[in-house]
């Protein structure tokens, strides 16, 4: 039987559905169960059974014709669904070998080593947007200040807990915060950048529909199934966290190289493809000299020379430059 894997998150349901040719299609239902809204009509079990039935119907198939696999933040079991495999989110993350996954949503921050969870955004706050999110968790905002506040909560939570994102492997951001559609796509990149605290070089990926968890879940069920996640997991590029004035020399086998200086307290992006490795030489007082190979991605190679790592989108001046940089970087590829 074909497989349908579902991840139930804070603000929606991500699904990987196997097609007739054996490939997988990733889809998202951008709503989740809210006790405040639905408890007088149904429970979580009934709600998610209806959601999965609805998704199957939209794809012109029957849910009963699939082996159903499930993970997420929900009170199991779900007796209305015939689930073949249920797996714990943390177990699935811990089995990731290729990347260093970081799961983030509005209430949870989860890595292989650390779990920081259940810091509720409840309505006992003066912020109307947070108060409404506690009722309508799926909300996306067009208000810049609301977005600053919301992402600020996540960054504060990570920093106060002393979580340092450092890894030699690519850092893969996943979870509903990155699966949610933002009014400005740049917000995801700025949040990812702000979550790094320690100077260094990090290759960054963003999972736009919880594909990491879903593909791992499918692998747990049947190790012979290969799931192609390249359409959903974005190769963002290399983030160079280099506080202070920095000198850079970039060269490929095809050109003579390019030298430039980056002033402190700025964010600067160099368009760089991820198909070739570029030689990089960097001079920086706080992290010393570095020579090595680097690959790019959607944003290419991103230098962050801020001395104080405050929230990027709360600083309008740097953020405007960052937005322009990103537009140019994306155009440059």
């Amino acid at each position, binding site marked *: 039987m074909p497989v349908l894997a579902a991840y139930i998150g804070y603000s929606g349901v991500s699904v990987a559905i196997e097609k007739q040719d054996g490939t997988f299609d990733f889809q998202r239902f951008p709503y989740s169960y809210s006790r405040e809204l639905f408890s007088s009509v149904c429970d979580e079990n009934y709600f998610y059974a209806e959601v999965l039935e609805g998704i199957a119907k939209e794809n012109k198939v029957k849910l009963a014709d699939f082996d159903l696999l499930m993970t997420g933040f929900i009170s199991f079991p779900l007796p209305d669904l015939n689930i073949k495999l249920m797996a714990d989110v943390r177990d699935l993350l811990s089995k990731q070998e290729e990347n260093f996954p970081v799961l983030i949503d509005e209430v949870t921050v989860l890595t292989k080593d650390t779990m920081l969870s259940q810091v509720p955004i409840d*309505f*006992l706050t003066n912020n109307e947007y947070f108060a409404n999110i506690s009722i*309508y968790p799926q909300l996306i905002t067009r208000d810049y200040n609301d977005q600053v506040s919301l992402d600020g909560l996540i960054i504060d939570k990570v920093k106060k807990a002393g979580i340092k994102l450092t890894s030699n492997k690519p850092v893969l951001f996943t979870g509903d915060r990155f699966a949610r559609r933002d009014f400005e796509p740049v917000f995801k990149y700025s949040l990812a950048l702000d979550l790094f605290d320690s100077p260094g070089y990090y290759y960054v990926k963003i999972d736009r529909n919880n594909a990491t968890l879903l593909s791992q879940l499918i692998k747990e069920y049947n190790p012979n199934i290969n799931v192609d996640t390249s359409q959903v997991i974005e190769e963002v590029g290399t983030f160079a966290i280099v506080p202070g004035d920095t000198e850079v020399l970039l060269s490929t086998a095809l050109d003579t190289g390019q030298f430039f200086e980056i002033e402190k307290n700025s964010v600067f992006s160099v368009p760089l493809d991820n198909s070739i490795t570029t030689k990089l030489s960097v001079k920086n007082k706080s992290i010393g000299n570095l020579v090595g190979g680097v690959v790019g991605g959607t944003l290419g190679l991103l230098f962050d020379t801020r001395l104080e790592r405050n929230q990027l989108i709360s600083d309008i001046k740097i953020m405007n430059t960052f937005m322009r940089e990103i537009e140019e970087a994306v155009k440059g590829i």
Partner: protein
Amino acid sequence: MLAPIIRKIIQNKTVMVERYLPSKGNLFVQKGDRLEPFQKLGDCMHSPSSVYFPKEFEPVKFLREKVYFQKGNLLGKLGAKKITAEENGYMSFDDASGEYFFEDMPVKFTLLSGLWGEVSDIVPESSVLIKTTVAEVDLVACTPNFSFGELVVFPNPTEILEKFYLESFVKSTEGKIVYVGHYADLDTIKKAHDLKISAIVAGSADPVGFSYAKSANIGLGVLSGFGKLETPDFVYKLFNSVAYRHVFFHGDLGVLRIPMSGTEEETAPSKKKKTALKVMRKVIKKVMRGQKVQVLQKPHFGKIGIIDRVSVSSIFVRFDNELGPVEIDLPNFFIIE
């Protein structure tokens, strides 16, 4: 495109409501009796209020049995402060807590049914369990209080009116459940608390006011969310049609229960209604033109409109007072039924 359906008002035909006497007394109904809202269920003798004094309280005389005091008589001292009886009543000693307490003179308490239904069970001398039909109004946020009382409905929509009406109802709002309009701000909630209103319902509330209501243990239920949001028209119309009816504020369940008569117009299980009940179980639906939606995107947050057209990742909604349709992103809306 799929989206969840929100039902602001649900008819529930199998609700059991317990009506109880505050003290042991007499019940006048039997299992199987049909009830009307103003039907007497029972009565008892009950003190409207009782006050417990701290352990430091020194009574005017040592006593272990009930002693009668007239209004104004000295009961004892609390430090240097003299404590007098505010009403005629009895002072006693509670062996369990080791404290003195004063109870007002018991008066006759009559328990009314307050709803239409059938007596399902009885606890002799104490309470009656009634099977009834209610309309449940969904409260998206509420304090976890339970209370019941007469529903007072203030006109929509202005805040000036809210305060004016609260002042005007000074003598008659105690213990009642009041719909205060589109928005309950901190001042209105504080005023309602001062007036001993048991619960207030509004289209929206100030988050600070909500925190206050929670700490002051006053019932507060919100219909649309936080900020200045409107009450959906059809909910307001329902409130208006049932004003002064005895209603039940279930903060723990997030609903305001309004007893319904069970007459042909309200609850008859006609063929059409049966179909509606079956469809009601659906919680998600394909988004289509012509559906009624509640929008959750500024500056239309909380408003209800009609879908004009559906795009790939957004919908265009027409509101009553707008010239053209407005684009609303998925998932900033719910289908309303």
